């Protein structure tokens, strides 16, 4: 009963607040902006949300589970896989959730129980690193980093470059890594740690000055940036562009979209829907709400957020107690995001924002299929990912990990099935699939792999 009431309140509150804002003209600047942000010819009008599960998730609990009747302590020496579901604190029984396309783990939460037909799972992915930092760079750019330096721009930066020139914050980032190696400055990620920090970044200067003083300071700094010494310095030029961008962010009057602690019916419904309090604006659910709101409001073209509160780097006994619940909280936040996007109409078209948004859930790597001596799991090269949204055919699985040691297995991107003569799944396959769905087929990001067409809508 509580859930039903909460959801109704959320929807009614959103409608009421949206109507009120529209009447007052509060949404006008952003809506006009969103309307104006038409994609280039040949490209679909798409938005992207990348959801990061920091620390390395255990895919045995969610995206790539194993039947404990077939994989257990009696044969672990042979299979090199020990799900050990019976050791988890409060593990559900039975553990596995059956779907039309195989089993899912219970810690996928509401995505498995309510939205299983919308999601697709990518399995058997080779991350080629066991480093947290390198793994993030590896996934977001589709390229192995050079040392600690990312090689190439992140996919969201590409999408922002291709589609987001008109957005106030084309590429919003919170608690995840995004890189711009070769794209225009406007496509660079604008990074904030929490909703509160975003609010501070888009609100007026604090303390404020008389507008006359602000203008004169602005004149001086803008003029100084026109000196030959400044123009010949990429750093100075980029800094001045960023300063002007910061002024544009403030003058965009977008703070009301992200004032999640406000005592308004809309924000109360939002907090209720995503399940966070006014004091939890730094948590995964709040960041998920921030991502969805940045898309729905037209402020952003892409949003990359960590949806996990705390980390998943469970090398010790904490694997039993926090790995599963934290994953579930993250996936539930994505489920709330999906519902939020579905409930909001896209630019008076009759379609929803979900019909124009792709969501990817990823982690830098997975965890070892065997428990270590301390009852936890260490870093594992193999990985999985989740995709859903506008271009993704739900209810599909592409690739597979082996039944011995969960090794990545070669697969056929056109069918998603295991094929010894196929390609080894890597993060760039996921990114290339998004490019293909957008209508970009000439591989501008130099990913050098095939898209997983088996997951794309026809």
């Amino acid at each position: 009963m509580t859930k039903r009431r909460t959801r109704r309140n959320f929807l009614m509150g959103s409608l009421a607040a949206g109507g009120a804002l529209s009447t007052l003209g509060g949404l006008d600047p952003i809506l006009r902006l969103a309307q104006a942000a038409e994609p280039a010819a040949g490209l679909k009008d798409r938005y992207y949300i990348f959801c990061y599960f920091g620390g390395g998730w255990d895919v045995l609990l969610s995206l790539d589970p194993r039947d404990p009747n077939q994989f257990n302590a009696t044969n672990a020496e042979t299979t090199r896989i020990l799900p050990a579901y019976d050791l988890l604190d409060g593990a559900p029984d039975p553990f596995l959730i059956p779907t039309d396309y195989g089993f899912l783990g219970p810690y996928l939460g509401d995505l498995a129980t309510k939205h299983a037909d919308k999601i697709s799972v990518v399995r058997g992915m080779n991350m080629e690193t066991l480093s947290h930092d390198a793994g993030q760079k590896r996934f977001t750019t589709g390229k192995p980093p050079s040392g600690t330096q990312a090689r190439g721009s992140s996919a969201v930066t590409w999408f922002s470059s291709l589609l987001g020139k008109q957005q106030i914050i084309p590429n919003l980032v919170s608690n995840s890594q995004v890189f711009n190696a070769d794209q225009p400055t406007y496509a660079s990620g604008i990074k904030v740690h929490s909703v509160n920090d975003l609010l501070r970044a888009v609100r007026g200067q604090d303390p404020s000055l008389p507008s006359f003083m602000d203008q004169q300071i602005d004149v001086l700094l803008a003029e100084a940036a026109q000196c030959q010494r400044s123009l010949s310095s990429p750093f100075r030029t980029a800094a001045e562009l960023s300063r002007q961008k910061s002024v544009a962010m403030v003058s965009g009057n977008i703070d009301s979209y992200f004032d999640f602690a406000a005592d308004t019916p809309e924000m109360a419904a939002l907090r209720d829907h995503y399940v966070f309090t006014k004091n939890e604006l730094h948590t995964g659910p709040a960041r998920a709400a921030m991502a969805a709101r940045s898309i729905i409001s037209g402020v952003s073209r892409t949003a990359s957020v960590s949806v996990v509160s705390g980390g998943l780097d469970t090398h010790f006994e904490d694997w039993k107690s926090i790995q599963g619940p934290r994953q579930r909280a993250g996936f539930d936040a994505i489920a709330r995001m999906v519902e939020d996007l579905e409930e909001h109409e896209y630019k008076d078209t009759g379609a929803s924002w979900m019909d124009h948004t792709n969501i990817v859930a990823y982690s830098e790597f997975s965890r070892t299929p065997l428990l270590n001596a301390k009852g936890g799991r260490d870093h594992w090269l193999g990985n999985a990912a989740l995709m859903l949204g506008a271009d993704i055919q739900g209810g599909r699985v592409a690739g597979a990990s082996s039944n011995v040691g969960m090794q990545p297995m070669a697969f056929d991107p056109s069918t998603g099935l295991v094929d010894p003569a196929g390609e080894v799944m890597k993060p760039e396959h996921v990114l290339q699939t998004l490019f293909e769905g957008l209508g970009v087929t000439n591989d501008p990001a130099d990913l050098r792999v095939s898209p997983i067409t088996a997951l794309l809508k026809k």
Partner: protein
Amino acid sequence: MNAIPRTLLPIAVVAVLLGCQAPAVDVPIQPHASQSPSLGEQVDRTRAELIVLPSADPIVGTLGEGTSVELVPSHPDAFIRVRHRMDVGQLSQAIQRATGGIGWVNSGAWDCGPAGYVNIPCTKGVDQFVKLAATLGVPDYLLSVTEERDAGPVFQKFLGDAARSACTKLVDAEVEKPPDERVLMVHASPEDTLESAPLAIDKNLSLLLLRYHGVKVTGPADPAIQRWRWLFQTIVKGTQQPVEGWRAVCIALIQHPDFYSY
């Protein structure tokens, strides 16, 4: 207040026309209009486009007795050093140093920041650089190990907040202090204007440029001081309060890349 910007209109036109030369201070003042670099016109430049390559011809050297070979190119642009933004710890300390210990701090108890954020000094009150450390790119040494040091829009916004906070407190404090204890209005009193004490104003601006930017002003005609004199004068004319001129100068000095990059 609306009348003030209109009276300032011609001076900004002159400012733009003069490029790096600051306008003469006796020219009427205007708000910057459309002459400032347009973000829309510039944001789509790629980084590669922004790099100005030296135009000097390659130096051809030959080996052999009696042949002289230049060891360095003669074109000075070849030696433009890549600038770097201060990290957050350096910036916090630099603002504290420049403002006589005020920094960007909210009132409150001593605060040393969360564990893991190193190189940021303990301060009395809540150091906002510590509070915003994660957003400003300070690594947590768990999932990230290198500090992001781009001067992006969020950094610029918070730098502006920091400058406004620190400089406002500094000016308010200095009005009450004797001259030998001031760090902002060192050679000029809070009542001095360019009309009443031009040498004192210039001397003070020169000191601030050296203190904040490491720029040594050679004299009143030095172009380096002109735009700062212009800012001071326009604010004083607009507000009739010399201390507001110093507040604006302090803020602009901190927001200028010469302060936060090296």
